[in-house]
């Protein structure tokens, strides 16, 4: 792989039951590219958490996965409400998810911590009222 490959997905903010489709598709594509299983697991869990967050908290967004020779980058961008206090949002257990979402098993406040745990680099760029862009990198 000398050139980079980009996969783009629209994440539907309406449909909770289909949330995760982009991540499952990414898993399939990475497997086809011969990426090691443990790396695929890290990338797809981190992406799923981000995808779910865009559905729960931001009404959907865009997801891009860029595979290059030495790294996989995941970029999640939305035009949701933004995150006022990123440090607080990063704490394990902090969640503003409604009960309807909690009853499905989400909203444990472990999404952002999981994204950090499974990636080598993670940056959150967010403005209240404008949206959030999260970039994650997993080194190959």
């Amino acid at each position: 792989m000398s050139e980079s490959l980009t996969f783009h997905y629209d994440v539907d903010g309406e449909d909770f039951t289909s949330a995760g489709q982009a991540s499952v598709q990414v898993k399939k594509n990475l497997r086809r590219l011969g990426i090691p299983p443990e790396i695929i697991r890290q990338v797809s869990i981190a992406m799923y958490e981000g995808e779910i967050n865009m559905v729960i908290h931001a009404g959907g967004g865009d997801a891009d996965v860029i595979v290059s020779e030495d790294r996989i980058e995941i970029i999640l961008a939305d035009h949701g409400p933004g995150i006022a206090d990123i440090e607080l949002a990063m704490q394990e257990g902090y969640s503003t998810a409604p009960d309807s979402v909690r009853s499905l098993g989400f909203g444990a406040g472990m999404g952002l911590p999981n994204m950090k745990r499974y990636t080598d680099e993670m940056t959150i760029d967010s403005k209240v009222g404008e949206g959030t862009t999260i970039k994650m990198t997993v080194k190959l």
Partner: protein
Amino acid sequence: MTVSSLCSACGFVPVALPDGGREVHGCYIGDLLSWVMGRAKADEAWITIMSNINIVAVASLTDVACIILAEGVAVDDKIKSTAELKGVNILMSDKAAYETASAISTLV
């Protein structure tokens, strides 16, 4: 032990078994999906009472060997067909999570 053998050895009900030949090593119990994704390891059996469609994606991404629904929890046909399609094994146990885990503990 394979998922299929585990299913018959413990008297579980096979709900979806698209990859029954897969080996199981270890077990994780939990219903909060982010905890499962953060803590469960690949090839483990995941015991849960959570039964909505999202468990299929979580099992697939976490790469567990199978989901074991405890307490006789039932899932609808949409979940069964999605699991078949995505290659996710789902078994059902009529026992509680603790008894289910005890039953498989010496086998996985």
